[in-house]
């Protein structure tokens, strides 16, 4: 079944550790996104990609990096985790519809990160 998967589901880690949040999709979508969401708040765009070897920064990108070596895989890395990174991280994908608009997003279940 086509889907989008995020691992781990929950992560508790100490300050200063390097972490990678995994995201994979089986739908063959070209576009993938990382959003960060705090409780009761809007989703903030961290990074996005419109295809292999293409990555762009969003609003909150300065403390993380992404890579897109394969269509289905879009990992997010925090080089040095801090308590301010505690949040839910949501990965999403969408189809490329030529005109670039009108596509809906498919979201993973998210990774809840806690940095102590």
């Amino acid at each position, binding site marked *: 079944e086509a889907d989008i998967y995020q691992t781990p589901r929950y992560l508790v880690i100490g300050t200063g550790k390097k972490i990678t949040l995994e995201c994979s999709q089986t739908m063959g979508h070209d576009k993938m996104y990382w959003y960060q969401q705090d409780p*009761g708040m*809007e*989703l903030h*765009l961290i990074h996005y990609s419109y295809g292999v070897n293409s990555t762009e920064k969003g609003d909150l990108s300065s403390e993380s990096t992404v890579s897109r070596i394969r269509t289905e895989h879009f990992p997010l890395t925090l080089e040095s985790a801090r308590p301010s990174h505690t949040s839910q991280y*949501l990965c999403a994908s969408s189809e490329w519809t030529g*005109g*670039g608009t009108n596509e*809906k*997003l498919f979201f993973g279940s998210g990774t809840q990160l806690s940095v102590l």
Partner: protein
Amino acid sequence: SQKIEQNSEALNIQEGKTATLTCNYTNYSPAYLQWYRQDPGRGPVFLLLIRENEKEKRKERLKVTFDTTLKQSLFHITASQPADSATYLCALEASGNTPLVFGKGTRLSVIA
């Protein structure tokens, strides 16, 4: 500055009634607007998309309207059920072919 506002953080409604949620936007000219449902601890799930040239869109008990003059979209759930309790998010593109920008959402509670 650009802003998306959803009318209230929380809305409580009696089962069987119609829930109406509002999404207002400022300094955007979106070609379309989307609505998503989000349950606690989960990612949002797409519900409906409405284009700027469409006044209204329906899907089962859901109805969305889009008024580009008022810069507003209304999201209606008719004959609401406790299972409709969730947070509902509106989203739009800031400009062509850019990632979606989301509102904070409205948390709907349907009381039996």
